[in-house]
């Protein structure tokens, strides 16, 4: 989806891609609460891309673009002369609105991945793709560490709040980061000792509780998606289909 989202430039094809990913997302039965968050977040992105591209995109800077209003007028002191005026144009807004579909298509695919695939299966899949064992160990440990770090951070913030230090975000960052990092590094030392005592890096092949194997359906899905992607890209590149 990312490859298609990057390569497709025709609005019709981008809309088809978006609809396909959204249908897949809905079919994957993610909780309604998450779906509502996704819709809100997508709306935020659409507003962001539309607003920024209405001012800054190539379509907005075309001489034929229809100006709705001027964000920075041409005769505005200093900034007007540097920028040549920043207009909010209709063509730019439409361009930005359509470009938002790219980002949402990628987001929908990722949301579906998170909602349907447990972390250990994702990591096992990465290992099957041939990533080195040390990197996989690091990725696994990092994923395992993420909630621990959040918990540690919450404890540090609670400790700061009980001492009446919380409030200023910059001071909070300074006072919270040091104990967070130092406590985590102490924990890392203990974990390293445990790993060494269990023969980590001894050169023997490692085994895993979760085993992922490519099956016939996986190969079939991989081939069909590749053919579909290749066809769309070829049609767009060679014949300008949907243009």
């Amino acid at each position, binding site marked *: 989806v990312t490859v298609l989202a990057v390569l497709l430039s025709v609005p019709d094809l981008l809309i088809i891609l978006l609809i396909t990913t959204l249908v897949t997302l809905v079919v994957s039965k993610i909780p309604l609460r998450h779906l509502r968050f996704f819709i809100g977040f997508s709306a935020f992105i659409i507003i962001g891309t539309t607003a920024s591209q209405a001012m800054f995109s190539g379509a907005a800077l075309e001489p034929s673009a229809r100006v709705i209003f001027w964000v920075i007028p041409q005769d505005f002191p200093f900034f007007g002369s540097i920028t040549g005026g920043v207009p909010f144009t209709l063509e730019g807004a439409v361009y930005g609105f359509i470009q938002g579909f790219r980002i949402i298509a990628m987001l929908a695919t990722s949301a579906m991945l998170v909602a349907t695939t447990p972390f250990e299966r994702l990591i096992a899949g990465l290992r099957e793709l041939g990533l080195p064992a040390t990197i996989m160990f690091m990725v696994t440990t990092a994923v395992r560490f993420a909630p621990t770090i959040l918990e540690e951070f919450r404890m540090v913030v609670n400790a700061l709040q009980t001492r009446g230090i919380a409030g200023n975000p910059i001071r909070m960052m300074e006072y919270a980061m040091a104990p967070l990092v130092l406590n985590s590094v102490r924990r*890392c030392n203990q974990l390293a000792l445990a790993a060494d005592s269990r023969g980590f890096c001894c050169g023997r092949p490692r085994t895993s509780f979760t085993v992922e194997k490519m099956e016939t359906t996986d190969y079939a899905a991989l081939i069909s998606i590749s053919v579909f992607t290749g066809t769309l890209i070829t049609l767009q590149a060679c014949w300008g289909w949907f243009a």
Partner: protein
Amino acid sequence: MFFVILHKQIYIIINKRIGEIVNGEVPIGTPRKTQADNPTFMQRFTTSDIIVISMFGAAGIVAGILGNVLHGASGLMPFIGAFILHTLIPGIILFSCISTVRKAGSATLVSLISSLIAMPLMGAPLFIPFYLVQGLLADGMIVGLKERMWTPSGISLAAIVYGTVGILMLYYFVLRLQGLEFPLYVVLPSIPLNIVFAIPAALIGLKLGTRASAVLAG
């Protein structure tokens, strides 16, 4: 007796030369080189290094997810979103990690771990090369600056490179591939602004990393 001693000496000398030339062996009597004799930044990763990098990778995942949740804001506010979400917070984590481990390769590894999990999960796989390039550059700076890297001026120089490349990658790679365009008068002022955010990130990272490496050394 003389000939016996002479024979033994010639035998030893010839064996030493053959050993040096053919096998690349170290001549007898030469102190053996170990990992500890290499400069710190060229040493191999120990188990605790690997786990410390993973821990910073975990912090990078959290920061990456936070950054991407607020990614829409960087489209709406190009002057604020990008600097805090993609430079300040990830910068503190990256520079803390490399200042703790102090070995070449640590920056690439922490960037790889952070981006490999956080970015695809949050719908921004285009950020993987963005983070990787920043990690590779930081490693290049470790090799280039050697021990000078761990001084405030050295780490600030690395932060300038980090900030400049970060903003160029953001505007000309990530956003361009997402179809978003920004004119030169947005990109150019963003570079010094991004550096202004990158240097404190690097200095905070150095301070945290120095304390963390002392804890790691016991």
